[in-house]
């Protein structure tokens, strides 16, 4: 068994978009490669619309990948074996309100994966499994017969996590599982993710746009910009010594409440807007907003290169 639970190689996801009469390729994810080790967490950050959700969904073949390989636990994920794979890979969704069917009780929501994969032999066994899952995520057993719309956002997200855990997966894609929640509840839910990882040994792809949250939970962090990875490194290293200009600007935007530090560091304000993914700049996707940009950046797209210590950066000049 290799040490990686997940290996993604040159993953591409292009959406066909109609623009007037023309059909264009929207490169939501363009040539992304990364690995995740057993029981570890890779944080994926980037601003809205950069393709984080699309990466997560393509991993589970919710979108058919345009190109590239996804190797899970030594086996390539294809549309043929995906049903079996979905017993080992699961997903927690971004929006706790639309990700639970309002016409189903909590029991049926959590029991659905059990039904689909026929993971029980008697009704009593099904019920036992559901109740123990509810306990795992900190829900009361009395809630089993309630409908999802009766719960708060944090509780809904717990229901979603219990549903993902029902098949006993080895890997979970967490798509901004806390960004729709209040800050105090965010902390509780993130805690729970960490606890579950310790107990069950699951690996996470943890998607967020908040670097602080991601640094807290991740072993490694990948930074994404316009469908491409621009920097991948160990969590603390990336936060303390960011190399890519985009990562630096992201970090400089993290609010620090100490005026001395705030004065000492200069805030990097990005100029201009994110280019439309339909009209990607040539060469480096970040060059329209990069202050280090040179002639080379406009022509050649930089590859992710190892800067030692497992720190990968895609930039010509840094």
């Amino acid at each position, binding site marked *: 068994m290799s040490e990686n639970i997940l290996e993604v190689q040159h993953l591409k996801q292009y959406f066909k978009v109609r623009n007037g009469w023309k059909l264009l390729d929207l490169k939501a994810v363009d040539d992304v490669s990364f690995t995740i080790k057993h029981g570890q967490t890779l944080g994926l950050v980037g601003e809205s619309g950069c393709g984080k959700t699309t990466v997560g969904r393509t991993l*589970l073949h*919710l979108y058919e990948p345009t190109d590239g390989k996804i190797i899970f636990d030594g086996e390539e994920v294809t549309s043929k074996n*995906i049903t079996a794979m*979905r017993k080992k890979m*699961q*997903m927690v*969704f*971004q*929006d706790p309100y*639309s*990700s*639970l*069917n*309002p*016409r*189903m009780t909590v029991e049926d929501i959590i029991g*659905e*994966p059990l039904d*689909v*994969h026929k993971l029980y032999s008697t009704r009593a066994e099904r019920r036992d499994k559901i109740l123990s899952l509810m306990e795992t995520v*900190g829900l*009361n057993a009395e809630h089993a*017969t*309630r*409908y999802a719309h*009766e719960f*708060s956002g*944090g*509780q809904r997200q717990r229901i*979603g996590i219990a*549903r993902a855990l*029902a098949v006993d997966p080895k890997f979970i894609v967490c798509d901004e599982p806390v960004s729709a929640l209040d*800050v*105090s*509840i965010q*902390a*509780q839910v*993130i*805690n729970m993710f960490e*606890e579950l990882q310790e107990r069950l040994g699951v690996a996470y792809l943890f998607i967020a746009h908040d670097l*602080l*949250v991601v*640094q*807290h939970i991740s072993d490694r962090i990948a930074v994404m910009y316009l469908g491409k990875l621009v920097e991948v490194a160990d969590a*603390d290293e990336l*936060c*303390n*010594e*960011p190399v890519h200009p985009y990562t*630096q600007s992201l*970090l400089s935007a*993290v*609010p*620090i*409440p*100490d005026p001395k*530090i705030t004065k*000492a*560091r*200069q805030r990097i304000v990005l100029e201009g807007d994110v280019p439309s993914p339909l009209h990607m700049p040539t060469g480096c996707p970040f060059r329209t907003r990069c202050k280090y940009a040179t002639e080379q950046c406009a022509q050649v797209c930089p590859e992710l290169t190892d800067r030692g210590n497992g720190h990968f950066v895609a930039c010509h000049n840094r």
Partner: protein
Amino acid sequence: MAGYDLNKTPDKQILSMQLDLSKFEKATEEEKRQQDVMSESTTFFKDGMRKLFKNPLAVGSIAVLCLIMALIIVAPHFVPYSYQEILSVEGKRDKGAKNLAPFEYSKAEQAYIAKGNYRFPHIFGTDEQCRDYFIRVIYGTRVSLVVGFFASIIVLIIGLIYGSISGYAGGRPDLIMMRIVDIIYSLPDMLVVILLSVVLSQILVFKSGSFLAMMGSNMVSLFIVFGLLYWVGMARLIRAQILSIKENEYILAARSIGAKPGHIIRKHILPNCLSVIIISTALQIPSAIFTESYLSFVGLGVQAPMPSLGSLANSAREGLQSYPYKLVFPALMICLIVLSLNLLGDGLRDAFDPKLKSK
């Protein structure tokens, strides 16, 4: 880059957006309990029913419909005449019982009563063929309701299957299926209804005595016409509903746990468009009744002597000057049924549409 350690949180200041890392600790039992939602558990259906019964118009129309239903079920049992029976007194045909006014007795009947016998009154009078008009209106209502109900069911079934396939498949199949719908939609429907009824009633021949023969080929062709033409509106509606439900993440979630399309349609999509289906079926019934009345009025509806509200209204036209009440009764019945079904449909929509959750 300025050197700072994100793990060391500096002192917290007012108005800062810094996350307090001490909050990243395990929630205590008490904190967990605080999150419990206190609202009482109500199912979607109960909630909708409660709202429906708060709506006076809807309750009124339910009452009217129940009354009409009771009447058409009970009346044939206590009215001693049948809808095709030509009135007779003591075995002799009562020639005087023609076009009687409501509650009027013919001469022969008056003589019969004078002898000390009881004669059931003609509540709505009689028609020009000496038949009791009340029972004919009752049977006409029966026929109209049956037509309305079954036609709506046919429309529902075809529209539901077609619309869900088109909406769920999406892409090119959806495109083709919807263009077919557009074509059918653009046909002048009354013209097609009339042409189809004429053609079908020629083609359809049933074994005499069978149930279908009793309804008459016109009636059967009516159902076929409905099935062929009016499902398009339903199919469009259901497709649009499914397209919007498909956007919800719980559909993706169901796919991500490995559920098959059939399972997703049955468990996730249909229950969520059920309210729309019920409402539009309720609104479909009056339109079917209306079309049936219209067709019977122009002579393409049910077969004589079986009455329907439309054919009764049609035959009342001839004596309109002298006997206006003969048009009033069936017309009033059509109005009552159509109006109360429409109001009930509106009430259902208000009660079950999740977007109107405020009340």
